[in-house]
């Protein structure tokens, strides 16, 4: 029972892949979210339209479909681009890269709304004070605005990360060796479906609990400036 017919190690390897996928998608998603929020608050109409279209489409389409579209679509899109440059070999997009793209896009769309709310809640005086101190736009952003946005956005982003963690299971459908696919392999050779899917479920649960603890630590850390005031 403990070594799970020898599949225990396999499942742990799967957990590492799941975690790698989740963290890579988080990184991509955070950047897309910040860009999306900036675009939504931009004074340029075209940027607002693009951001609005992006969040509406991604949030209205099932994550599984996004994964499938990226996985099958990226190959043909890349090949037609490469074809323009006279490259005719077959290009294959791996499950991991497709997963990071799809889940990053999904996370980014939801994070756009979280960041937008946080950016809007920064009082105008903070911007003015930074400008009065002679900070340029870049310095103002990462010294004054971002630390405050981060604190306000963290709880929302934490929730999104928990959703992302569970969505990683979808990438097993296109063949990534994560927890879910390792469980599938174990099931097909042992026929003990209930056992292995339950173990997989508890592994996701464990990852969720660890993430929750980490997010609450980060929230405390991000608010440490507040307790003094």
């Amino acid at each position, binding site marked *: 029972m403990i070594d799970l017919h020898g599949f225990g190690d396999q499942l742990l390897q799967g957990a590492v892949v799941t975690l790698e996928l989740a963290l890579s998608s988080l990184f991509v998603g955070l950047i897309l979210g910040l860009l999306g929020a900036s675009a939504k608050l931009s004074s340029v109409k075209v940027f607002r339209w693009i951001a609005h279209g992006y969040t509406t489409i991604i949030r209205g389409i099932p994550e599984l479909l996004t994964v499938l579209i990226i996985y099958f679509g990226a190959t043909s899109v890349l090949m037609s681009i490469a074809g323009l440059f006279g490259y005719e070999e077959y290009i294959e997009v791996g499950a991991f890269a497709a997963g990071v793209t799809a889940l990053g896009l999904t996370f980014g769309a939801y994070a756009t709304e979280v960041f937008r709310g946080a950016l809007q809640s920064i009082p105008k005086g903070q911007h003015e004070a930074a400008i009065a101190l002679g900070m340029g736009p870049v310095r103002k952003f990462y010294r004054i605005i971002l630390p405050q946005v981060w604190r306000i956005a963290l709880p929302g982003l934490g929730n999104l990360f928990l959703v992302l963690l569970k969505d990683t299971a979808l990438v097993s459908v296109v063949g990534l060796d994560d927890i879910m696919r390792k469980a599938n392999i174990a099931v097909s050779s042992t026929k003990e479906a209930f056992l292995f*899917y339950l173990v997989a479920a508890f592994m996701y649960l464990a990852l969720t609990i660890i993430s929750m603890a980490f997010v609450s630590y980060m929230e405390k850390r991000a608010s440490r400036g507040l307790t003094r005031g």
Partner: protein
Amino acid sequence: MDFSVVIEYFPRLLQGAWVSLQLVAISIVLGGAFALPIALARISPVGWIRAIPFAYIFFFRGTPLLVQIFLVYYGASQFDAVRESVFWPILKEPFWCAIIAFTLNTSAYTAEIFRGAIQAIPQGEVEACKVVGMSKFQMYRRILLPRAFGIVLPAYGNEIILMLKGSALASTITILDLTGMSRTIIARTYTPMEIFLAAGGIYLVISIVIIAIFRQIELRQNRYLGTLSIKVPDKG
């Protein structure tokens, strides 16, 4: 890209969409019915009564829906006792397995939404109910639940959208829902982009319709708040 395949197979896609809608509708109704007792148990003053729904909600919200579907569809059939039981005619059907998994999943999320709404009602209203001599049942039926229903609507609309998106996972257990149908068509035509994008478009239209319906219900349910409080949304 050649979108003539989309036109050719559009009726099949709509068939798939109809299956998706059935999955969502049945799961949402059953899930909502289960969610209410779970939510009420979750706010019980008795410790151990609170613990059971807490564990239930934690499990179903903390694990992927895909695992839950596989647990029901593949997991249950591992046991001879299940195969010989009266439930087997239901549990061997992928459609009903998906319904069971979706119902359990959405009931956990919905229970948390209901709990939040019930707890969001000001304490003064509960006290007012007691003062006019309502029993606990009357208080819930006449005051708390209708109030909670109004508070719950926006979050509940979101949950239905999430369920619609989750229903795509039914395709992993051979159900020909919108995603499953798309994959079947693609296996024949080898046009993944065209068909998947068309399916995405149909999902998008369904979500937009659901959002519009909920906005109407919300306006109706919260009409006692007065016409003045209904804000006209800003442009863009």
